[in-house]
């Protein structure tokens, strides 16, 4: 088994989720190479080379990849795929965008959102918004996988894999897509994907002002990332990248505090694997209580400030 792991960047650094993908790749057995592709990625490559169990880091550093959409990255991965049995990435918005295209170009199937490696060609993944889990076996050919990072521990560091510059000219056909702009990420709070604690708000908060006024101080105290339900995002209380759920971010932090969230199955799909779940809601029949370890029924406008003060 030879595996190629696709590294990602976040705010100019190696995305911490790459470490979780590496430990999933390790369970496939065999050798692991990491592809670091982008513009000015020497630092990322160095970080990737420091993980234990990595054989080589392939580096494609090209300005053309700075604003490249998915097509050139997919073409690049396909051009390197020949010697690998498995190509593995995180189930991030980038991984979900690029990897199916890679799979199709290789005439391979893709297994998405892997939560468990049962055997090197057998994987568990959620379906129906996590209401069921299926175990699937890849019947042959190359395997293209996306991994849910929250379900695998980060790989240990302590390695020093050689870095290998790969000289390929990335395809620069702008007709296939060019990134024109990206919203700036907020560097002042932990990222949802890797935060130990997530404080999440729902429609019951009633306004964007309330959302910020109640959740920010609590998140600050806990060093938490902020999340939101779809209803809160649709109502304009929070921006779309904060949405936790079937189509938003999938998180499994140590502590998840759901505030004013009723708990539609689409939301539960994104957080029910958190270690400890706290639900604060005025409706005692809200489905969120069915997954909560600690539930408080009452007025969130009283409870949340009191909780913030008590911590």
């Amino acid at each position, binding site marked *: 088994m030879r595996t190629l792991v696709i590294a990602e960047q976040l705010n100019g650094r190696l995305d911490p989720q790459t470490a979780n993908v590496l430990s999933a790749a390790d369970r496939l057995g065999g050798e692991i190479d990491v592809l670091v592709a982008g513009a000015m990625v020497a630092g990322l490559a160095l970080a990737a080379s420091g993980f234990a169990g990595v054989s080589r880091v392939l580096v494609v550093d090209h300005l053309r990849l700075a604003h490249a959409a998915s097509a050139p990255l997919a073409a690049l991965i396909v051009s390197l795929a020949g010697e690998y049995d498995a190509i593995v990435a995180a189930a991030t918005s980038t991984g979900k965008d690029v990897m199916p*295209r890679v799979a199709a170009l290789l005439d391979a199937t893709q297994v998405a959102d892997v939560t468990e490696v049962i055997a090197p060609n057998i994987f568990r993944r959620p379906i129906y918004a996590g209401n069921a889990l299926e175990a699937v076996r890849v019947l042959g050919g190359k395997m293209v996988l996306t991994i849910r990072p929250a379900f695998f521990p980060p790989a240990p560091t302590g390695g020093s894999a050689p870095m290998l510059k790969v000289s390929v000219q990335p395809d620069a056909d702008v007709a*296939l897509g060019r990134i024109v702009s*990206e919203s700036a990420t907020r560097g002042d709070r932990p990222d949802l994907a890797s935060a130990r604690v997530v404080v999440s708000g729902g429609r019951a908060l009633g306004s964007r002002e309330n959302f910020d006024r109640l959740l920010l101080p609590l998140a600050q105290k806990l060093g938490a990332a902020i999340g939101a339900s779809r209803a809160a995002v649709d109502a304009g209380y929070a921006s779309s990248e904060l949405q936790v759920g079937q189509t938003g971010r999938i998180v499994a932090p140590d502590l998840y505090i759901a505030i004013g969230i009723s708990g539609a199955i689409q939301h539960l799909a994104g957080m029910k694997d958190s270690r400890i779940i706290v639900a604060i809601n005025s409706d005692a029949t809200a489905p969120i209580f069915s997954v909560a370890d600690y539930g408080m029924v009452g007025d969130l406008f009283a409870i949340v400030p009191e909780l913030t003060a008590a911590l």
Partner: protein
Amino acid sequence: MKILVGVKRVVDASFAVRVKGDHSGVDLDNVRMAMNPFDEIALEEALRLREQKLATEVLAVSIGPVKAEEVLRAALAMGADRALLIEAEGRIEPLAVAKLLKAIVLAEGVELALLGRQAIDDDATQTGQMLAGLLGWGQATFAAKVEIGHGVLRVEREVDTGLQVVELRLPAVITADLRLNTPRFAALPKIMAARKKPIERKTPAELGVDIAPRLEVMRTDEPPARPAGVVIGSVRELVAGLKAAGALAK
């Protein structure tokens, strides 16, 4: 410009499925089925492009058993010009769906394929990207806003870090995210009229596509149940509980 919209028949979004006792899959007997909600959004966007005179025809395509006609009738009622059923039984994987849609795209001279970002049954989130790859077209997945001018698509995408704007040329594939639009309800007269409209039919064999599965589903399980939680009466007890559980450790 002709637009292809993929519409899949799936379990109604409000329904929580149960796993069968023999672990062979989920129980779909007597379950209400509907058009995949993301496909409804894709169809709505296609209809709006046609209403803006940016498209001339909207072709709805479904792949599945004869019963998938229901979602094609729903698509016609919403306003699709034509409906095509590719008859196939059983589990059709995204790669096979993409190959079938590619054959239709090429036969029909489609310039824009609009699909839902994922189907809410298998949650695979693959078909649009695979179709774009097979066609060698650009792709804009997870679209929250679509603008077309002079053959250039400008698409706002929902990504993990926020919103990203991409530009690409037609022909292209777009997959629709939740906030792209709010689909219209079909009025009763249109629903009645859609019952009489023809539904075109093809088979995978006619299209020369091998739809044999590449994956074997070995078993399906319920997710592990969480132990029952406790309802707490005061913030003091909650903090004590969290401390005891080690959830507040820095």
